[in-house]
């Protein structure tokens, strides 16, 4: 009897033990993958900015522009095209708030040489501007590194060239898969599947070699190993434009899309598998044209949305989409202005898009200059912010204007603080920007302004444009996070 009871007791304990369940697997640590929603902002901590498209040769120079709110010692590293050769490193100090520009041509002249800008404190930001007598291109540098990048606005139609630069500043080798999309849908390029980029180097891919005669091109670049910072460069017989890749977003702000008399287009691609309805709001100095154009874009097919017929320059654009999209602005010489007379502009056909005019009247584009030089492009701004660090450059014979877009429903008061290597760059400007308008701040040339700190009491977006005899460029500002 005693044994039976003991056995029963042991059995009960065993049953209790057996009904215990295994522990839930621990969740994986939540770090390491920096899939930021955009290319990042100026943070109050050390940051490293990647500028993929830097070149200094016999005719081309590139300025690296750094604007900061605090005093910093900046380290600029220019990679050597020869593997295992030590990079060129230079350091310079900026008394904050301040800004500075470094002409990489004064450091070396060896052609392409992507740069790293390491800033030990913040908020601070960097941008690059490539210039020559007849070249002007550039955009902000990139601070965050998504695993999946989107690039829009490419084309390999006759007379137009598109290159992708894959910059791997890290020691690890990177392996990426580039997926191309054109008006034909997904364009398979086996050579770009599992593309290797050695550590601390870069690769430039001429897309025309693989996908010639495509009117519209967009790309996704996925890192399967290591990390890369991609940028796209589009050139034609009028000029050159470059802009970095981005992550997708539902909204995109382009504080300015018009510059130098160029005809602007928005290039978009859906980041998902479904059709996406894209609404284009036009923001001018006078007011907002909501839903000026609404386009339904198919998955895997990049679409160019013409803007020049929606308002007279200058104007900015806000893009809203029903799902995640990637977007960039491309501004090209207007139809009929080409040297070779091949005046068909991309997007004229808009074959795949159904276009609906908004309920607001639109103004036809007005060509001001007879000779239009240049090609401009810019990545969008995923979300507005109340603070912006805007590295800016000025060049002789060119006009530089910083544009502030207030696409919200209320007026905002904005402090615009010029930044440079010296203190007296003029007084702070406080302006009020009405709801649904843009405001342009003309930048004085030659007095040492290399940036602005823009502080608003509401969300705004900031970009700047430069145009003149050298061409035209659009450069996005960097939010102060």
């Amino acid at each position, binding site marked *: 009897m*005693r044994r039976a009871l*003991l056995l029963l007791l042991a059995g009960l*304990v*065993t049953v209790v033990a057996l009904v215990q369940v295994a522990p839930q697997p621990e969740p994986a*640590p*939540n770090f390491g993958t920096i899939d930021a929603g955009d290319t990042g902002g100026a943070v109050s901590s050390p940051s490293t900015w990647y500028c993929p498209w830097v070149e200094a040769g016999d005719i081309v120079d590139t300025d690296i522009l750094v604007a900061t709110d605090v005093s910093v010692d900046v380290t600029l590293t220019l990679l050597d095209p020869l593997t295992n050769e030590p990079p060129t490193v230079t350091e310079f100090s900026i008394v904050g708030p301040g800004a500075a520009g470094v002409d990489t041509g004064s450091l070396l002249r060896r052609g392409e040489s992507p740069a790293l800008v390491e800033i030990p404190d913040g908020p601070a930001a960097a941008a690059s501007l490539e210039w020559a007598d007849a070249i002007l291109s550039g955009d902000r540098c990139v601070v965050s590194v998504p695993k999946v990048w989107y690039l829009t606005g490419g084309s390999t139609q006759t007379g137009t060239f598109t290159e992708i630069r894959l910059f791997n500043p890290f020691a*690890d080798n990177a392996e990426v898969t580039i997926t191309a999309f054109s008006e034909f849908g997904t364009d398979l390029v086996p050579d770009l599947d599992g593309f290797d980029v050695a550590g601390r180097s870069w690769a430039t891919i001429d897309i025309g070699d693989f996908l010639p005669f495509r009117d519209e091109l967009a790309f996704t670049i996925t890192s399967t190993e290591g990390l890369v910072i991609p940028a796209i460069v589009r050139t034609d017989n009028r000029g050159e434009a470059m802009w970095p890749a981005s992550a997708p977003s539902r909204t995109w702000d382009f504080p300015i899309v018009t510059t130098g008399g160029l005809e602007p287009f928005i290039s978009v691609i859906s980041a998902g598998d479904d059709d996406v309805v894209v609404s284009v709001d036009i923001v001018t100095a006078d007011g907002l044209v909501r839903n000026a154009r609404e386009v339904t874009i198919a998955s895997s097919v990049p679409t160019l949305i013409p803007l020049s017929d929606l308002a007279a320059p200058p104007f900015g654009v806000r893009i809203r989409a029903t799902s995640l999209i990637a977007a960039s602005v491309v501004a090209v010489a207007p139809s009929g202005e080409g040297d070779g007379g091949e005046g068909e502009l991309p997007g004229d056909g808009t074959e795949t898009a159904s276009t609906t005019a908004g309920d607001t009247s639109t103004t036809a584009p007005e060509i001001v200059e007879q000779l239009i030089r240049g090609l401009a492009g810019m990545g969008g701004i995923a979300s507005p912010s109340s603070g912006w660090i805007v590295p800016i450059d000025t060049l002789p014979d060119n006009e530089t204007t910083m544009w502030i877009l207030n696409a919200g429903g209320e007026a905002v008061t904005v402090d615009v603080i010029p930044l440079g290597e010296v203190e007296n760059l003029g007084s702070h400007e406080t302006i009020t920007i009405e709801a649904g308008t843009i405001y342009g701040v003309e930048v004085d040339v030659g007095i040492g302004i290399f940036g602005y700190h823009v502080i608003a009491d509401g969300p705004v977006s900031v970009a700047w444009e430069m145009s003149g005899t050298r061409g035209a460029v659009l450069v996005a500002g960097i939010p102060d996070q």
Partner: protein
Amino acid sequence: MTQTRHPSVATVVVADDSGLLDATLTAVERQVYAMAGVVVVGSATSIRAATRGPRVAVSATLDEAVALIGSSVEFLWIVAEGAAPRPDALRAAVQDAGRTEAGIVGSKILGGDGSLISVGLITDAFGVPYSGLDRFEVDQGQYDVVRDVAAVSDAAFLVRRDLLHGLGGADSKMARLAALVDLGQRARLKGARVVVSPASEVVRDVNAQTDVRWREEAGRIRGMFKVYSPLTLMWAVPLDFVLGMIEVVVSIFLGRWFGFDFIKSWVWNVVHLPDTVSARRRARSGRTAGDEELFRFQRRGSVKVTSLSSASMRALRSRLPGDDRFTVEALSNEMRQPAFVVGALAVLFVLLSARNLWSDGFPAVGYTLPFPINGADVLNAYAGGWNPAGFGSADPLRPLLGIAGLVKLVTLNAAAFPEYVLGAGAMLAGIWGVMRLLRSWSISAAPGLIAGVVYVAGPAAQGIAGNTHIGTLLGLGVLPWALRLVVKPVADGAWPFLSRIASVVLAFGLLGAFAPLLLLVPIPVILLYALLRLTDADAWRGVILTLVGTAGGALLLSPWIWSASFVRIARDGYAYWNIPSIAAVAAGVVIVTAVVAGGRVLGLVASWGALIAGVGLLGSRSGDFGFGTEFESAALAVVSLGVAVAIGAVAQTVGDPTRGGWRRFVTGVGAVGVVLLVVASLTIVLGGRVGLPGDRFESSFRFTLAAEGEAEISRILVVGPPELLPGDSRRIEGGAYRVVSAPVPDLGEARLADALDLDSFLEEKLELVISGDTKRAGGELAVFGIRWIVVMGSTRGSDALEPSVAWRDAFAGQLDLLPLTAAVENTVWVTDINPVSRALTTLGTAWPRVGWQYQGEPEPGRNVFVAENPDDGWGPGPRRTTESMNELAADEGRATYVPNQGARTQAIAVLVVIVLLSAVAMWGRRRT
């Protein structure tokens, strides 16, 4: 050639109170060779009656006798009381001494029945004497040739007086036989020959008095220390130690116990080491020959091994049934008395299961890490020194480290051998302990062996090994002994009682030292046993003994015990043993059948086993109740014990012919379960690592040795899934990481202390890295001496582990980390920063870690930054904390930690108490 000169010889008779002095003196007086005199050495009262005549003098000691004889005498003939030299024995010895120019001439010693007792001795390299004679071998003149030997019998031998004087006589600290061998070896070092003269016959009809075995062993070891060169000692002493241990273990199965002799002989030598050094100096000064001269008269191999082999074979032959006895009945008889066969099987199983430990030591995986290289370092750290885990702390090391250090020290810091000794030894002790424990309930050896094998290697033990809790695994070897000591009735008398108390405290202390939680196991287990045997006074005495043992054992864990938190140990991690379903069914069947089919006592004992197995199982899956992995392992030990008890009961019942009917059928079913569990246990033989998983860190971190000198000055940051990291790990935003020494962390680094300043500083830096706020992780981590970053686990393909991928991505985008392809499975980076060092002077000179301290070139007037948690114990001063690390003066070229004197005193006190307890335990045992 005819001898023309007759050397002067005096005879020394060494009396030993055997009452045969008269006969010996008579035989001496009958010698045909004229003697210069006769001196009897011994106590005056014993020899007064026997000595007669004016030519017999009396002396108290041999030295006095030699002095008494005077320098005119050339030879001394030393004859032992009880020896009866034939009339021409001395003449023959003198003649052969003259012919061979020998310094020492021995006689042929015969028994009264004509059997050979000695024709001189040779030894092996360890000084173990070997006569070369068979037992009862009759003298037929087969050895009648004058030949060189290592030593001669003390029954009668001739020695040159000046040689004996020069040698300082026989070593009075040595036992008889060891002293003879020592005398011969020292004589050879001085260039003298030692021969045996077969023409010199001496009859000795009684066995010579033999000293106690351990004294002979101690003397033999001392003899080695005295005569061998340092080079020979380097291999001979460790090897002798190993052979001694093997002899201890094997002899157990031959029915002999030499364990205490072994310990005492070595302890004696340690105590007498200063005197041995002096004696060695005397023995080797003015030597004309080296070790090679000694080797000439030594046999190959080991006498001990040979004799053990012979004894084993004899035992085997006696155990094997003959053809006519090969019946079920004969087998059953063997099952009842299978001491040797069972022992041989157990040894064979252990040898196979631990074979890879012999060459590789413990695998470096999880909490099982290699023993530290230097035992003295570990003992120093255990006794109040610096705990090297992570960035270090002043927290005491676990007692397991003390054991590891001690074993390392005793084995002269051998590489893998200490781990083999502990691993295989614990396994063997576990099997043997279960056999002894089960014998408490009259369960015989064969069932005990089966139960023991399942106990140390069954599914539950494999679960412990899978958890890589090496301490608990080793503790399996002690647990049944601890229980046996409290369950076994205590004999009457004070000494047996004291001896038992001492043994229990020692056993419990050892149990707790291996695995602290196991110290708490016996109380509930024995209490349950006593409750089941409510009227058994011995069982309740066992409860009291258990309480005393637990308290005493806990005190032996000083100084660690005073800062330890058993609650924290028990709750760290998540206890969940994924029990193999087949094993669960098999164990269940065995337990049920053991309870149902067992007799009155066995059934009750099996019920006890069933209950503790059930409670153990619940403990092993008690993560939901807040218990952790170390608790799981301790609970698994309880499961293993409970199942072993049940297996013993079933196996015993199977061999019981009185059991019939349904009980026999039920027992048969239980036997099937036993077979399944045994088969499951035998699977650990495949790995040959006592069930432990294969190495992980040795292979993963070996690349750090590629660049000479880097491993000694650097650390490795190891990140990834916590179960793939060495020992404990810290967490940051859900990711596990820890810092270890290169090239491979040792056992001292397995358990991390609470995070201190430098640990927090590292956490800050890691936050920078994983937040992406820095792209120069190499520079950020270099200040900690971190040169390499290893992401454990696959990060590619379908095998990719999420934590590994997350960590890889965190470090992938760094500008000053270079990827290494050295490790196939893991992702590895090396920093692009220089210099990187755990200890760096202000001039940027790296100081390597030597043992468990830092040493480098002195830099007078400058400082060295030691990347260990700041602590005032670090020196030399002035010390200050800079960036959460120690800044010390670099004048002396070293950075060390001054031990905590309180902890050190406690550790020494514990050591003294252990020695005293051991002495009491042994003494009481002998008195019993």
